[in-house]
């Protein structure tokens, strides 16, 4: 175990952890939810308080108006007694029930007073001097034997005023209600909200923290496992939560990806070992031939050496070509597509020195759309294969039949057992008996050929040849419309 990091190393570590914390989805989500909720709740609280206050004030105002108007009406109708009676609704002449109720309540909670020149008329004072003084000084005259507070202003009171004309002159009736009970109620509501809002926000934050924690727990598990998976432990998988949500999908997708990676890595390993084996054998064969010949140059059959070296070199070149082509296809990095005349490729490939006689009288024409290099590999590999396994004869044919170009290479070799026909197209397939390594082995050629044919939307299969061996048949979509009006010369 190495010593834990000390000194300056720990500082960025801690900073990094803090940043990681702030950047964590859980923290951010909880924070966002709390802030939004707190903001919304605060706004709603302010609205609520104002609404309550407005409604209460309005109620009082309506009641005061009702009281003031009822009293004024009675007064104008010549019924001043109403202002002194203990229960004005009893004395009133034309008052309905709601008015009477409003007056009864209003007189309990409100202060009624009069002002103006005519107020002496309604003054409850029996002392005439007192009445005169009130008129002269313009002092407000309290009614219903209530004391007047020292100051009545619109800040602390809701006041309704009604003007009444009397024989003595105009007077103004005031009905004033203190705002204090309303303010007390509003205060209470505010205080309650002041505690309730933070408590609710806190509860929501905790809930969000818990829920995100629960939702994200599988992510941490996946992260931890994924971090532990390296190229040598590709058999491990991330834990899959049972849920079918995004995280469950993520875990399953990751595991599918790991499956592919694992099999790709497997293939790669097998491929490298097979390819190096395959490359090594011609190289060592060349070296051996030349070395032994050089040891006794005078006895060596140099022509035979040359021929072997050439053959091994061709094998090497074909292998390198195939490896490159395969790598390029696997990487998805292919050459440009164009119209390709397969007959040209076949004639080209047949121009090199061959070890068996090849009947090419069946080679007509076939134009396909594809990558020239790749199609060349197809032709070369099938010819190589036939050449390797033929006893003495190979027949090549090419023709266009309807929408398909059919390319066929037959040999008179031992053929391929029907139950092994799929296996031949596997990479470095090693079939025992006849098609053995000694004859060059299937190597990569047929696997690559199949792959190329399939990327060109074609198919490849093996049949029995009339020559006695195998017939490898490739069918590719024709790039030409079937000829309709081209007459034959005959």
């Amino acid at each position, binding site marked *: 175990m190495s010593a834990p990091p000390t000194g300056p190393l720990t500082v960025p570590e801690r900073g990094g952890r803090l940043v990681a914390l702030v950047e964590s989805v859980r923290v951010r989500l909880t924070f966002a939810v709390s802030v939004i909720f707190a903001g919304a709740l605060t706004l709603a609280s302010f609205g609520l308080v104002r609404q309550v206050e407005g409604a209460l004030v309005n109620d009082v105002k309506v009641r005061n108006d009702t009281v003031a108007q009822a009293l004024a009406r009675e007064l104008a109708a010549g019924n001043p007694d109403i202002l002194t009676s203990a229960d004005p609704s009893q004395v009133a002449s034309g008052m309905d029930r709601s008015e009477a109720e409003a007056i009864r309540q209003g007189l309990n909670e409100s202060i009624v007073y009069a002002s103006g020149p005519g107020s002496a008329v309604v003054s409850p004072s029996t002392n005439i001097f007192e009445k005169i003084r009130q008129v002269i000084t313009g002092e407000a005259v309290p009614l219903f034997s209530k004391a007047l507070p020292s100051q009545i202003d619109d800040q602390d009171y809701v006041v309704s005023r009604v003007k009444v004309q009397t024989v003595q002159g105009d007077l103004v009736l005031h009905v004033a209600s203190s705002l204090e009970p309303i303010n007390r109620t509003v205060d209470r509501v505010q205080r309650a909200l002041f505690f309730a809002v933070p408590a609710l926000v806190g509860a929501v934050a905790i809930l969000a923290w818990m829920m995100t924690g629960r939702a994200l727990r599988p992510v941490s598990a996946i992260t931890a496992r994924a971090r532990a998976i390296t190229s040598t432990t590709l058999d491990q998988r991330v834990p899959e939560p049972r849920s079918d949500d995004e995280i469950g999908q993520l875990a399953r997708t990751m595991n599918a990806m790991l499956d592919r990676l694992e099999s790709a890595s497997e293939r790669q390993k097998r491929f490298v070992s097979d390819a190096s084996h395959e490359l090594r054998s011609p190289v060592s064969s060349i070296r051996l031939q030349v070395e032994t010949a050089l040891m006794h140059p005078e006895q060596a059959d140099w022509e035979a050496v040359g021929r072997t070296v050439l053959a091994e*070199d061709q094998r090497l*070149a074909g292998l390198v*070509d195939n490896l*490159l*082509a395969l790598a*390029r296809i696997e990487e998805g*990095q292919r*050459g*440009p597509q*164009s*119209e390709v*005349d397969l*007959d*040209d490729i*076949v*004639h*080209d490939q047949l*121009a*090199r*020195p061959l070890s068996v006689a090849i009947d*090419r*009288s*069946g*080679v*007509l*024409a076939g*134009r396909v759309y594809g990558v*020239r*290099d790749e199609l060349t590999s197809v032709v070369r590999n099938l010819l190589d294969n036939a050449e390797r396994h033929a006893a003495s004869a190979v027949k090549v044919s*090419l*023709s*266009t039949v309807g929408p398909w170009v059919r390319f066929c290479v037959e040999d008179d070799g031992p053929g391929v057992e029907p139950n092994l026909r799929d296996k031949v197209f596997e990479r470095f397939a090693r079939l025992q008996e006849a098609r053995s390594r000694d004859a060059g082995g299937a190597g990569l050629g047929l696997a690559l050929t199949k792959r190329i044919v399939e990327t060109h939307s074609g198919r490849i299969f093996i049949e029995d040849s009339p020559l006695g061996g195998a017939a490898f048949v490739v069918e590719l979509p024709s790039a*030409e*419309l079937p*000829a309709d009006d*081209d*007459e*034959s*010369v*005959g």
Partner: protein
Amino acid sequence: MTGHSLVVVLRAAWERRSRQNGAVRVLVVEDEVALADAVVRGLEAEGFEATAVHDGLEGLELARTGGFDLMVLDIMLPGMNGYKVCRTLRDEEVWTPILMLTAKDGEYDEAEALDTGADDFLSKPFSFVVLVARLRALARRRSDANLQPLEFDDLVLEPVSRTVRRGETAIPLSPREFALLEALMRHVGEVVAKTDLLDRVWGEDFEGDPNVVEVYIGYLRRKIDRPFGRNDLETVRGEGYRFGAVSPAAS
């Protein structure tokens, strides 16, 4: 500078001298010395006269002298790469047939080689037998080639730039289609036998199905005639093919 020019002048003089003895002169531009030497030795054994240089610029200067009948040009070269050499020569209207050696390393491809004006290409590693066959074909094509454009009505075939157009429309043809059309247009109004076309276009050693001629005649019709509502390329039953039998005015 002067030393270099002197070499060029001397080489050119030598080329002019060797022109007289009839051998096909091949310039091999290839930087891999062992490979170039092997090719030169092989070509000389096959009766060619071969000269090798290992640098693109040197190859360009020698090719400009016009003292060679054929050129084998590698792509990766010091001094100047093969594509540039080829393009420069074609821009300067030097039409020596060029066979390009391409390597399948993914960076360059054969279509590109033909685009720069090369006449043929061969990818490394190549068989010497195939190289010789290709060079012979190139030499044959050029030696009997008349480099004047062939015209029939609005169809024009340029043997030098290997292009075909009808009116203003360029018609891209494959090398085989081009050779077939060229063979037919050299005998406007005459019936050319199928076997003659086979010999001329596919080579006398052709061993495939002779009906390939019909297929290619079909390809050609679909490119030069049908899109233009023409019928210049005719089948003469039992005899062969005739290009331009109907007088242009009649169509």
